[in-house]
């Protein structure tokens, strides 16, 4: 009884690559909120029609067959679809662990009861409403009241309260009150995620990126609360890539564990990969998940490390981060196979330094572009 955990290497069968472990269903791009830091593609309004219930059921069954154990539902706001209960029930029946990622808008008592009945395992509530009026979730009492109501409902239904809050330049100074709010709501777990600059967030990068001083203060505030709360509420603080200068392995490696499907049926190795140019995104209505995962050019394009540019090939960290985020490389350099500029060894790292320098400036006041279908159509670009 000495080694209790099998090391992850032992999970890989020698003969054939393992299937995905995690299926994320982005069931809709529709959303009642308009977050300026949304990672959805800016041109989401141009996406094709949403998958039908049967299409989703087929995706769920195939993924489970391949060994996937995690089923996440997000969007957009997934509750805008009325078949979430059906998808959850089937996923749960097949043995998936089911997780709903929601803003809470539309999570009524009746809906929650139906989801519970369907076997939903977990709910992640996002505190992410940067409103047009205030762009400050603290002063927006309507949102707070809604979150409080929803959290009370989910708690009463027996779910642990898990809250995710996206931090950015305009709310990070209120972190003390944000954490206080999470405590008041009775959260067991709070994830403080600094904005990842994809989609709408990239468009709004200047307006969203906090200064070094703001970040340092936020970390200090978090630490103070951690001391005070101990095990009562766990707080995870996700440092932003730009500031940490550490490239991250895309979703644990391109085509390694994660498969996401867009509302209109495209399979992606990472939920933001849709923006990448020159790639053919397989449609789940035209191909089997098995082919998509194992054989499609898309899932093999950035798999492993053989494709890495010279900068990374000679680097000892290449197995650790696979050269970082493909979307970030593309958005910043125009080349999806470049070293992630977040890495100090990247020849394009100056791009990060200049973005950080802009964030230091006090006179930095860029208007926010809020995520909505009209702006999406007008802008008509991926990020």
């Amino acid at each position, binding site marked *: *009884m000495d*080694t*209790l*955990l*099998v090391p*992850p290497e032992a*999970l890989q069968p020698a003969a054939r690559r*393992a*299937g995905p*472990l*995690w299926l994320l269903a982005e069931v809709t791009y529709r959303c009642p909120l308009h977050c300026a830091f949304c990672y959805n593609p800016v041109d989401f309004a141009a996406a094709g029609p949403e998958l039908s219930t049967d299409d989703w059921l087929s995706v769920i069954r195939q993924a489970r067959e*391949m*060994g996937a*154990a*995690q089923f*996440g539902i997000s969007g957009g706001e997934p509750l805008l679809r009325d078949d979430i209960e059906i998808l959850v029930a089937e996923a749960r029946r097949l*043995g998936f*662990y089911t*997780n709903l990622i929601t803003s809470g808008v539309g999570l009524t008592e009746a809906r929650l009861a139906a989801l519970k009945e369907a076997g939903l*395992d*977990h709910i*992640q509530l996002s505190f992410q409403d940067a409103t047009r009026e205030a762009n400050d979730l603290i002063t927006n009492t309507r949102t707070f009241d809604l979150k409080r109501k929803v959290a009370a409902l989910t708690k009463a239904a*027996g779910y*642990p309260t*898990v809250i995710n809050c996206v931090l950015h330049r305009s709310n990070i100074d209120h972190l003390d009150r944000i954490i206080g709010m999470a405590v008041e709501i009775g959260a067991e777990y709070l994830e403080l995620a600094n904005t990842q600059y994809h989609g709408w967030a990239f468009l709004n990068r200047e307006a969203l990126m906090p200064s070094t001083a703001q970040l340092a203060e936020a970390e200090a505030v978090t630490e103070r609360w951690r001391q005070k709360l101990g095990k009562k509420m766990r707080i995870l603080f996700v440092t932003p890539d730009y500031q940490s200068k550490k490239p991250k392995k895309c979703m644990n490696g391109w085509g390694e564990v994660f498969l996401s499907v867009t509302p209109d049926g495209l399979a992606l190795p990472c939920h933001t990969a849709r923006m990448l140019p020159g790639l053919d995104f397989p449609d789940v209505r035209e191909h089997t998940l098995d082919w998509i995962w194992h054989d499609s050019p898309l899932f093999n394009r950035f798999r492993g490390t053989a494709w890495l540019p010279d900068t990374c090939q000679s680097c000892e960290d290449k197995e650790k981060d696979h050269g970082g985020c493909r979307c970030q490389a593309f958005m910043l350099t125009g080349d999806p196979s470049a070293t992630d500029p977040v890495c100090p060894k990247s020849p394009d790292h100056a791009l990060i330094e200049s973005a950080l320098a802009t964030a230091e400036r006090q006179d930095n006041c860029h208007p926010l572009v809020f995520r909505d279908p009209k702006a999406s159509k007008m802008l008509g670009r991926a990020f």
Partner: protein
Amino acid sequence: MTLRPRINRLFRFQWEPAQQAHVLLYPEGMVKLNQSAGEILKRCDGSRDLPAIVADLEASFNATGLTPDVEAFLAMAEEQNWIDWTEA
């Protein structure tokens, strides 16, 4: 009053055919358990206390003296939040 271990509600414990192992599932993650861990957790259903779990394991695997191992594992499992103890 006896304390009985059970799987923490943040986790789901199940047999996973693709892994040929028992696993603990939690939001966006999975812990793959080896056989002994799986056999112990299988018995953490809130209905048995520690001596009952040990007795059952010893009977099932024709072994003796498992108490220290089981205790050590459960302490680790509690530390990881995999289990909590309910009063019966």
